């Protein structure tokens, strides 16, 4: 595959690793923000090839992991209704709510469907005029434009039976929250390449300046990730803290303007709870008031009153912030395994706990 295989090249990887070894004189802790990067790091085994001075912390950039329990429970309540067809990206189905997940709802007779794009959910709505199709609009700035576009099209087509359950979050707010937390020890950030493809990287410049920390826009293939790590380490070693772009083939400083425009048209900033972390001010998107008719929470006000119950054992929030390691959790590998996850970090293959679970078995 052109434009992918070149960035998985073993020779190039080893050249970059050599350069990284030469550039590194002391320990550095970097956080890759995005779950897609974590996935790639685990899948290629890159984390075990790095110089031992470099530690990577898997950050809170997996939308599946940080979607708050309250929203997962609302999704479960909506999906259980006989008058609703609930549509979602696939990996949300296995995320545990207070008492069950969306797979269990499906097994109990709920109409839960996996879609690859919110526009597929629109088509389901057109084909099923007598039922309300709810789309679970989660994710970072990456999925926001497509989700916003679905809202715009639903309105333009006069689709009365389409609604979205919105749980969007933004990366710069997460970086700000992490840097404000006294416990977090991160020397540099690898920013999420796909988020920056949409948003550009100008938003990160004040963060790098204020917290005196290098932030490098980084792609997803192993060569891209190594390139990001190398740029970040070079800045750290030189005592610099700028915003670098190691993913220039996709990212510009200003980003994708039409995509940003559709986000602004449909969404506005709001305080948002992050699972395991808590409420981060102005860290998410909600629908603008003019789209209230498409808001599933307003269409079905009864889901507002849901009481949530998080596992008292799970420390996924501390894991997401890099404060605690998964193995330090009392439930790790006991009550909590990939088959019986208590928290979202054990659910997705890139979740820090799931990764530790697998590799722990190898090093035992």
């Amino acid at each position, binding site marked *: 595959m052109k434009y992918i295989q070149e960035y998985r090249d073993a020779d190039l990887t080893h050249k970059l690793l050599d350069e990284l070894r030469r550039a590194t004189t002391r320990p550095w802790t970097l956080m890759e923000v995005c779950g897609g990067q974590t996935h790639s790091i685990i899948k290629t*085994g890159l984390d*075990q*090839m790095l110089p031992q001075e470099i530690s990577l912390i898997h950050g809170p950039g997996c939308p599946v992991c940080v979607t708050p329990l309250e929203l997962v429970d609302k999704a479960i309540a909506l999906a259980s209704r006989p008058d609703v067809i609930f549509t979602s990206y696939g990996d949300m189905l296995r995320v545990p709510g207070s008492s069950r997940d969306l797979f269990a709802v499906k097994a109990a007779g709920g109409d839960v469907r996996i879609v690859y794009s919110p526009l597929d959910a629109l088509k389901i709505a057109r084909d099923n005029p007598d039922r309300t199709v709810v789309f679970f609009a989660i994710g970072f700035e990456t*999925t926001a434009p497509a989700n916003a576009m679905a809202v715009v099209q639903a309105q333009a087509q006069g689709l009365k039976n389409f609604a979205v359950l919105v749980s969007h979050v933004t990366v710069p707010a997460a970086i700000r929250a992490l840097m404000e937390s006294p416990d977090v020890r991160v020397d540099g950030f690898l920013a999420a390449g796909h988020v920056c493809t949409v948003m550009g990287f100008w938003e990160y410049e004040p963060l790098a300046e204020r917290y005196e920390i290098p932030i490098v826009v980084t792609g997803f293939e192993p060569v891209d990730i190594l390139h990001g790590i190398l740029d970040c380490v070079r800045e750290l070693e030189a005592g610099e803290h700028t915003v670098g772009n190691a993913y220039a083939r996709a990212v510009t400083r200003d980003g994708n303007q039409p995509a940003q425009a559709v986000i602004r048209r449909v969404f506005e900033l709001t305080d948002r709870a992050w699972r395991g972390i808590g409420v981060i001010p102005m860290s998410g998107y909600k629908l603008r008031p003019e789209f209230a008719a498409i808001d599933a929470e307003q269409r079905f006000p009864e889901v507002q009153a849901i009481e949530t119950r998080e596992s008292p054992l799970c420390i996924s929030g501390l894991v997401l912030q890099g404060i605690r390691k998964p193995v330090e959790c009392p439930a790790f590998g006991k009550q909590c395994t990939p088959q019986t996850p208590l928290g979202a970090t054990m659910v997705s293959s890139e979740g820090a706990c799931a990764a530790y679970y697998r590799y722990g078995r*190898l090093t035992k």
Partner: protein
Amino acid sequence: MTENVNLLGWTCPVPLQNYPTIVMGHGAGGKMMSDLIEHLFAPAFDNPLLAQMGDATALELPPGRAAFTTDSFVVSPLFFPGGDIGELAVNGTVNDLAMRGARPLFLSAGFILEEGLAMDNLGRLVTSMAAAARKAGVQVATGDTKVVQRGHGDGLYINTSGIGVIPEGIEIGPDRARPGDALLVSGTLGDHGIAILSVREGLQFETEIRSDTAPLNGLVEAMLGATHAVHCLRDATRGGLSAVLNELSGASKVGIEFDERSVPIRPEVNAACEMLGLDPLYIANEGKLVAIVAADKAQAILEAMKAHPLGRDAALIGRVVETHPGLVTAKTSIGGMRVVDLPAGELLPRIC
């Protein structure tokens, strides 16, 4: 079409044509059911065993240990690029027998038909099953038909059981892998799963990806013809290569290591997996086997596989190790290492 016909005393030489779809009566045990058997199943599977028409079929087995297996087929859609559920139902059970080194001989075929299934589609599927049975050299010796109400089935479900005979001197089992053994696959992985997904999800690719459904007994015979030093065989169906290797490493209490770069995968299957956020090592196959064989015979077996049409793309991909028993690891494209785990449940496309 049927509503206005007086069925009393009705005798038509080709009565099935008057019912364009399956109705509840086709499973009621009466005339309609016997018409279905007489005019559709019996002529398609045409063999003297089926012609016994008893409650059970009497079989003569050649000497050796008998192998016995069963499998149910529930695929949707019923027809897909490269095959259909009928062909799959024969090949699946034939392959399960072949994976014990058995020569497949007899199949049973149980049909659960959904009211409303087009008779034409049933005819095509039964014909396709019969052709697959002939190709694999097995006889459908007994069968059963039930009809369920509309909405209670996906068109049709098929269960097939199979009996085969294991020739003298063949010892193949999931617990027989030993450290040092070589790991082989018979061809490109992921074709079937992606072919099904492409129809189910309405995904259009530039090149059509076809299911690899095929009977593997001929290939196994060719391998065993080269040497009996085959320790484990598995067809890599649900869960793909990763599920098979995890099962074998668990059953044999050994570790398995392979090199991702030597695993044959079609570029279009790889591209589809990249787009959908899936891993080809977890995708189902219906005509590919995984073999663990004595290292010193690996080359001879590989050559025998490559000489067979269903093993043209066969490859040596790894080995059995003493370290990390029960765990499967892969050397990655960049020379790293990863643990290849069992999938937790359904394969889920990733959001990002």
